[in-house]
């Protein structure tokens, strides 16, 4: 069947050039009757004859053979199935690709581009959910609206109110409406893209994208259905990305092998997901346990953990953020986080309950460890991690009930703790 289409394609290309069979046969060094048989799909051709015909048609031989490329046909089929409302001649896709290989490639490429855009859209949407500025701004908007609704309702339903009091509520209403409009303008300014933001918005490593898409749990790698190379092959990465992603996938695979998921979860449930108890039970280091806890499947009976790993300068080495606890990519987080304090007390785990300005609470364990011992003239190189969870109620009661509480924020620009002594940047939403 595929061979038959090659003839059709030759005929279409010849007609497009307004050549007769005789002209093309002559240019390709064939007899007109043989070309006729080829064009009517009664003779298969390849190699030298194919090249000669393609040359005479002034096209690349692959333009004639690509209609036989199953991958191209599949991509065009995918494009056709993308929209069920338009009636496409799906039973004639092979014929279409044979007759118009250029258009078929165009459709396939556009379909691929739609896939890429969809993926980028999903990533951006996810980033928006994690945007602490947006969360804070939404909170302010709701507060403004609440005041306006309650106040206007009072004015509408209390016509016998003393004039001085109604004037006071009208003034409140005007002031709150002004705040609302300021908040709306701030949000608009925040989301007006700059060239720099365009670059950074998608500046995620391929491994990070893979983890986010899989909610930080690579099931097929965990259960052995796919190897690191299988996953890498599916990702279609650029050469620049391959080595870094392979190394990250190997680290993940080592974690999964060191602490296999099923026995780990069974044991974790027995100790109420307490990282320190798990490190003792598995006779392993706390860092390995924290990384394992940050990469669990998403299930209602399992707490959700986020994690940040930083070096002594505060640079972020690895992060898994949660919707309610966003983490900066390049530093600039709240300096009161215990992960930074742990750097001055290496190997000493620090538990703390973090209270965020918006009311969210997190149980955290922070822990610093040397990656290189000190040498003469050189200090030790130290890194730190902080494991955090909003599901502290699932942890042993002692782990959160008797844990020191800290009032912290995410970043100064979105933190409403105006009197904080650690503030180094102004709060962006000055509405409050």
């Amino acid at each position: 069947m595929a061979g038959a289409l090659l003839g059709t394609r030759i005929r279409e290309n010849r007609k497009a050039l307004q050549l007769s069979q005789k002209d093309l046969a002559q240019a390709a060094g064939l007899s007109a009757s043989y070309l006729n048989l080829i064009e009517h799909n009664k003779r298969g051709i390849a190699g030298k004859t194919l090249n000669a015909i393609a040359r005479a048609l002034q096209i690349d031989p692959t333009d004639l053979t690509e209609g036989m490329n199953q991958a191209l046909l599949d991509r065009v089929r995918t494009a056709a199935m993308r929209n069920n409302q338009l009636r496409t001649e799906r039973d004639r896709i092979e014929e279409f690709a044979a007759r118009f290989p250029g258009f078929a490639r165009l459709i396939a490429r556009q379909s691929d581009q739609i896939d890429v855009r969809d993926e980028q859209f999903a990533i951006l949407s996810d980033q928006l959910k994690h945007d602490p500025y947006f969360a804070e701004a939404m909170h302010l908007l709701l507060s403004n609206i609440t005041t306006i609704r309650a106040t206007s309702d009072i004015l509408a339903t209390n016509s016998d109110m003393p004039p001085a009091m109604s004037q006071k509520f009208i003034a409140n209403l005007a002031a709150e409406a002004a705040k609302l409009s300021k908040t709306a303008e701030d949000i608009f300014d925040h989301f007006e893209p700059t060239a720099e933001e365009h670059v950074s918005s998608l500046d995620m490593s391929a491994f990070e994208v893979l983890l986010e898409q899989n909610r930080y749990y690579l099931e097929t790698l965990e259960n052995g259905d796919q190897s690191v190379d299988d996953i890498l092959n599916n990702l279609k990465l650029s050469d620049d990305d391959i080595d870094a992603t392979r190394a990250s996938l190997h680290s993940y695979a080592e974690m999964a092998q060191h602490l296999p998921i099923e026995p780990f979860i069974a044991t974790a449930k027995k100790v109420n997901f307490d990282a320190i108890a798990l490190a003792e039970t598995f006779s392993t280091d706390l860092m390995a346990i924290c990384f394992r806890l940050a990469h669990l499947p998403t299930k209602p009976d399992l707490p959700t953990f986020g994690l940040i790993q930083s070096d002594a300068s505060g640079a972020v080495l690895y992060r898994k953020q949660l919707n309610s606890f966003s983490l900066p990519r390049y530093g600039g987080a709240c300096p009161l986080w215990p992960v930074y304090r742990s750097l001055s007390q290496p190997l000493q785990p620090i538990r703390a309950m973090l209270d965020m300005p918006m009311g969210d609470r997190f149980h955290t364990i922070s822990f610093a460890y040397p990656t290189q011992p000190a040498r003469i003239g050189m200090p030790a190189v130290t890194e730190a991690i902080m494991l955090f969870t909003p599901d502290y109620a699932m942890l042993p009661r002692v782990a959160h009930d008797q844990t020191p509480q800290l009032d912290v924020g995410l970043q100064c620009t979105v933190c409403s703790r105006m009197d904080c002594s650690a503030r180094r940047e102004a709060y962006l939403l000055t509405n409050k």
Partner: protein
Amino acid sequence: MQKRISIIEDEPFIIEALSFLLEREGFAVSSISDGADALTFITTSPPDLLILDIMLPNVSGMKILEDIRKTSGIEKLPVLMLTAKGQKKDRLAAEQAGVSLFMTKPFSNTELIANVHEMLQG
């Protein structure tokens, strides 16, 4: 006897609106806007009902609620939590911390007053 309601909320206009609504219903209303003073404020003169915001300066409403439930004499105080955060997990956290009722902003005045009456009757 006149029932007393305390409000801990950092938005002054919301305090004014709530105070007006509750005083119109015959309640005695007191308020503060900083979470740090909350426990002293409540224990000094325990109200019959507390309206508590989650997001407060210095100490969160959730922490205040937990402290109330641990403090002898006010551990059973009815607490109506108001928050702009209507997510399921906030509601669950508030329930675990012992909230009596949870309402999300923006709220309806009528619904709020009805809830307050119901809580005080219970």
